[in-house]
């Protein structure tokens, strides 16, 4: 018996209406159009990016391999000498440690507080809309403005300590003058400024969580903690990724808060960060070669850490 094929296999079936061959000149025109569009929209951006980002990075890498000091010519090629000096310079390790502490504390604290605030504000009503605006305001202020405000609050004669004295505290803490406290005071100021950013990102993510998941969980008898643990938190994974990576990058390069509030003190390097050290060494101390080496290390460090964290958090997004 021979099976009768009533229909040819789909894979080999001829198309009912083969696509009409486009005239050759139309295809060439589209290619030209693609190149033209790229030239118009892409090339200026690429040229600008190369000019203001890639070229300066290249120049910095080159300077880091020299002893460049604009006030002490001639500039000599020293190879990796600047990098070798960094390895044995306790000052460099101190500013690197400070930077890592600030980055870790601010990233975790801003995420945690931002999430808590977002959960509180994830409701409808004019008051909640107003509060969202209030929490976001510090984000749009410049770091210098925020620093000046907090300096006025936290100096010895500032608002906070004056209030504490008024309440009977004889010797309130030296928020900015105590070397053991100043770094964490800086962390708080930066956290305060970045909370609003985290709140907005988490709120956007919260509003994308389907309500029927919560309803189904309620039917199954889940309480608020279980709902947060098994529904909200896993679905906030993309928001956590965005917040963490953005905070990590922006905090690691902090300069303005340090410059205005503590100038790296109190004491030698107590609150110095890598970016602050680059400016001090390069522009004040004129050691451009050394400062460039620190800048290159900073660039590589941020790129590597940000990439690793991004990969880890993105993996969590997939599994959650």
């Amino acid at each position, binding site marked *: 018996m021979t099976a009768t094929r009533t229909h040819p296999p789909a894979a080999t079936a001829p198309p009912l209406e083969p696509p009409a061959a486009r005239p050759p000149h139309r295809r060439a025109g589209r290619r030209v*159009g693609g190149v*033209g569009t790229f*030239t*118009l929209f892409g*090339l*200026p951006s690429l*040229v*600008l990016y190369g*000019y*203001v980002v890639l070229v300066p990075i290249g120049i910095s890498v080159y300077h880091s391999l020299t002893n460049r000091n*604009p*006030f*002490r*010519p001639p500039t000599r090629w020293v190879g990796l000498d600047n990098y070798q000096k960094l390895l044995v*310079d306790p000052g460099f390790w101190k500013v690197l440690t400070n930077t890592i502490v600030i980055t870790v504390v601010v990233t975790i604290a801003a995420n945690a507080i931002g999430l808590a605030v977002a959960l509180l504000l994830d409701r409808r009503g004019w008051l909640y809309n107003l509060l969202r605006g209030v929490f976001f305001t510090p984000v749009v202020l410049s770091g210098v403005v925020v620093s000046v405000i907090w*300096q006025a609050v*936290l*100096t*010895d*004669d500032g608002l906070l300590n004056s209030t504490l004295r008024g309440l009977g505290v004889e*010797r309130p803490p*030296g*928020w*900015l*003058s*105590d*070397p053991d406290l100043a770094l964490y005071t800086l962390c708080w100021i930066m956290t305060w400024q970045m909370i609003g950013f985290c709140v907005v990102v988490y709120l956007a993510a919260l509003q994308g969580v389907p309500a029927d998941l919560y309803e189904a969980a309620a039917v199954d008898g889940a309480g608020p903690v279980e709902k947060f643990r098994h529904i909200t938190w896993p679905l906030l994974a993309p928001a956590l990724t965005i917040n963490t990576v953005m905070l990590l990058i922006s905090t690691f390069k902090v300069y303005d808060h340090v*410059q*205005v*509030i*503590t*100038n*790296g*003190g*109190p*004491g*030698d*390097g107590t609150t110095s960060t890598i970016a602050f050290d680059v400016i*001090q*060494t390069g*522009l*004040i*101390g*004129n*050691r451009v070669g*050394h400062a460039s080496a620190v800048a290159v290390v900073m660039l590589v460090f941020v790129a590597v850490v940000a990439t690793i964290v991004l990969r880890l958090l993105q993996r969590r997004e997939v599994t959650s």
Partner: protein
Amino acid sequence: MMDRRRLLAAGGVVTALALLGACTAGGDNGAKGGNGEVELSFLTFETPNLNAAYWDAAIARASAKVPGVKIKKLVAPSADRTSYVKQLDTSGQMPDIMAAISVSGFAQSDKLATFTPTELNEFVWPYVNTIGGEIYQLPYNTQTIPMVYYNKDQFAKAGITAPPKTYAEFLDVCEKLKAAGTNPIVLGGGGKDTWADMYPLTATVATEVYKGNPEWLADRVAGRKTFAGDPGFVKAVQKVVDLAKKGYIDPVGLSRSYADTEKAFREGKGAMYPMGSWFPASADSDKPGFEIGVFAWPTDDGSLVVPAYTGGGLSVSAKAPDVELAKKWALAFQTDKSNLDAIVKGDGAIIALKNYQPPTEMGPVYKATLAIYDEAVRQNAVTTAFSQENGDASLPPGLADKAALGVQDLITGKKTAVEFAEFLDAEWAKTK
């Protein structure tokens, strides 16, 4: 097709213009003014004492004396005008004339024009800050750094009848003030004003080191001395450590900015205020609710020592469009009697020009400061001021900032005197 080409061409032109604009921003030095005048850029800086009105009036007076010059005023974004000049220089925009910058580095790399001794005939100390024997800045102004300004009311309440003459008496005064519940020494240095904490150390280095060896820093530059290896320097540092340990300096005050520190003294939050001779300008013009006295930081044996800095004048870029004209304008600016009177009234300057007499209406704190300085000049008891030096014998760039941070460590007990001295030596070595 034609429209697309036009669009592409327009995009290209905009991009090219944007890049060209980025390349040439601010690079208009030396432009000829409307009437064939030479335009010269002049970098100033503004403080509460030296405000925009002061600079505008002073520029107008100098320009009236030197025809053919059109001044384009620039204002440094902060008091640190030297760093700003470095930034401008890096992008090829060094100002033609600059007020009160630290010339170290600029001079050695031939970025500044030199003044001849003949041009400085009117100046009292023309050679005070020479670099390689050349004069790069007009030394028109002396500032004593520091003198000790004190609250006469708080002294009287603590039973102190006269300012101290010896260091032992000074410690006794501190103890009496502390016992009376008064903070003895007001000191600041918070935020960007770290420099303001240096003055006790500047004073003790003058009394313990520079008094005995005025060439000490030149020896340090030449490698014949080190900070840690000099017992006199370590003793000077130890005096500051002891003042902090005994509670005569309140470390919490380290968070105060310079302005807040002066405010704290004015509000009676401390009895003694080691500060530069610019303080009398505001002390006389805006009197606090108590009488202010002044004395020189005491020495062990009671002899007079006054640390001071002379310089602070204008410098001229070697690449100014007309260097001779720029120098002429700078000299006119710096020697104009009205300009000098204005800075004496506004900033308490002690003018270092021959035959200059300050306005008779100057207040009592200025006159008292000037009297002590004049007496020190008569006794040959003026030294340089540590961390303020200019010229060949000065700290390497950046070291004064490091020293100011180190002083905070001394006051908070994080460094001993020897550790501080070793720290300075280590930081100096890094600049090589």
